[in-house]
């Protein structure tokens, strides 16, 4: 780690090439995802429908398909990918652990438990019904991470090892509880399972708005903290000596990344792999500096999940694959190729 941290900074010109290429790549994937669907709609009709959607006067079923189904679905996939990749980048920096992902502290298991409770008991427990599936998932996810942090705290400090252990153990317990809730009511098992696997199938504008509202402050905040993330790469002690208020910074990052993760999971379900491999892929491509890592993770995460969802909804049409299966099946080999070819980043 120390060796990579003092590596010579790449020349500025390739940096802008990579940034531009990433932005163009994301735009291309988004356009492809908007153009392709189970119903054949010409690019001209898609553009027209989006124009009419922006003006709020939809005309006919095709407009509804494009503006109410396809556009929010693509945007939600992009926002979820960006949020998970950003949260993954933050977690990996704070934990200085290559296996850290946004679900490490139990956000996913907590969200799954909340969603399962709401799906199974939402009709009988009024407060759950009021929260809705997404609200219950968000609430239990955040609560889980807060409990993990409180359990791991030692004299005002957050030791990384106890944080990870508390997260893994509480997460396993909650997964078991989710299975119990799910299997206790067999009629609803399929619904809970579908939610747990993650899907953008029924994405709406409200979901897009919720996640966008979380991303808008999160991305600039992460960019502003890029120097602090870099300092952590050299170890907590050195970072402290270099003037970083390490404990306060860790609390802030864990809290922020958790809120972002919980928001993503509450609107899209538990989609694995994105938050783990996208930051690694970026790191393998451009190195560990967060000036590059943060913006590129956001762009690549968005592009990766839009692409994965495009695959998920087209290969078996009219049936759909859970998008989490695609991220693992397609993303895994892609990442291994990068790993073999790429530079040593950790």
């Amino acid at each position, binding site marked *: 780690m120390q060796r990579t941290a003092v590596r010579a900074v790449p020349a500025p010109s390739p940096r802008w090439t990579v940034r531009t290429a990433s932005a163009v790549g994301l735009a291309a994937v988004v356009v492809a995802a908007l153009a392709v669907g189970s119903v054949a709609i010409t690019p001209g009709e898609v553009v027209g429908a989006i124009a009419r959607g922006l003006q709020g006067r939809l005309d006919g079923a095709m407009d509804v*398909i494009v503006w109410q*189904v396809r556009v929010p679905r693509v945007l939600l996939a992009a926002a979820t990918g960006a949020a998970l990749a950003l949260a993954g980048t933050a977690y990996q920096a704070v934990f200085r652990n290559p296996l850290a992902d946004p679900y490490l502290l139990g956000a996913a298991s907590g969200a799954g438990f909340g969603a399962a409770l709401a799906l199974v008991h939402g009709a009988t427990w009024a407060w759950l019904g009021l929260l809705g599936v997404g609200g219950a998932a968000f609430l239990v996810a955040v609560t889980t991470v807060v409990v993990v942090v409180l359990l791991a705290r030692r004299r005002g400090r957050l030791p990384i090892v106890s944080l990870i252990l508390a997260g893994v153990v509480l997460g396993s317990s909650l997964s078991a509880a989710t299975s119990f809730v799910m*299997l206790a009511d*067999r009629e609803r098992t399929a*619904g809970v399972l579908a939610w747990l696997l993650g899907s953008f*199938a029924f994405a709406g504008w409200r979901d897009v708005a919720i996640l966008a509202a979380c991303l808008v402050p999160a991305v600039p905040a992460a960019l502003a903290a890029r120097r602090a993330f870099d300092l952590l790469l050299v170890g907590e002690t050195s970072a402290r000596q270099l003037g970083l208020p390490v404990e306060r910074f860790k609390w802030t990052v864990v809290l922020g990344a958790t809120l972002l993760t919980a928001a993503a999971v509450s609107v899209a379900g538990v989609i694995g792999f994105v938050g783990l491999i996208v930051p690694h892929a970026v790191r393998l491509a451009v190195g560990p500096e967060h000036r590059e890592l943060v913006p590129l993770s956001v762009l690549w995460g968005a592009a990766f999940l839009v692409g994965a969802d495009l695959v998920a909804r087209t290969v078996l049409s009219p049936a759909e694959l859970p998008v989490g299966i695609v991220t693992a099946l397609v993303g895994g080999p892609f990442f291994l190729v990068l790993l073999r070819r790429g530079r040593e980043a950790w």
Partner: protein
Amino acid sequence: MKHARDHRNPAAILVSRAVAPVAIVLAILAFGVAFAQGRVVDDLGREIVLDASPLRIVTMVPTHTETVCALGACDRLVGVDSFSNVPAEVSRLPDLGSAFDADLEALIALEPDLVLTDEYSGLAEALVPLGIPVYAGTPQTVAEVWSTTEALATLLGLESEAALLIGRAQGRVEALSASVAGLPAPRVFVELDATPYSVGPGSYLGELLTLARADNIVPGRLGDFPQVDPELVVAEDPQVMILLDAPFGESAETVAARPGWGSLSAVRDGAVIELDQASVDLLTRAGPRLPDALELLIELLREVRP
């Protein structure tokens, strides 16, 4: 209107002038009654109000497909889910996936004026904001088969067809259960999968077992779809086993090979019934073929009834 120049006889005039307003009032009353009866609330607690009788219906659950067709409105279907296969003619319709991963784009492109789906998949929440009327609910008991049929018939404007359908079906159910009244009730274990999951007496299939005069070994306190302890099965020693998981590879042999199950009465007496997929569909879809399902159960039990 000059009455003096009206050449119809006075009685006819009287009738036309008196009857017209009365007829209008009656029509309004009848419409009001129909409207009041037409109040349909689905399993999500939402009231479904339609502007007109639906002519482009999408069904995302096989039982709804069967019900719509049993009401004689098969020709109003424009799309169905992947599992709908009864009656055979619906397989010609566009396949929209399952309710849990429905192809929303294709569904909307069909421009349905009513979508009939389940209450669990979230499809209703996705479609209602788009202005598509959705009924979200599935029958889970025998009584709900009748009430759901009535609800769908009301939405489709086929109340009298529903009354006929339900009356005929209930008559057959009564006759069928009368035919087995007084017969000895065999102890039966129904297996949904090899975990093993079974059905409690409160479930739809559990109710059918009772009507068919079978003694379900699964006690009601375990719930409607319990995963049962294999020891319970051994202790209760069923005389008949009905394998709904036979299409997934379970058989008399695999059951006999399970620890401790080889000596069960059903296994020793060759009373392990392996159902084909069509029979599984018939028994598990709570819908208009309920009497056929009951008849199948009675037939299966007749061969093995002690």
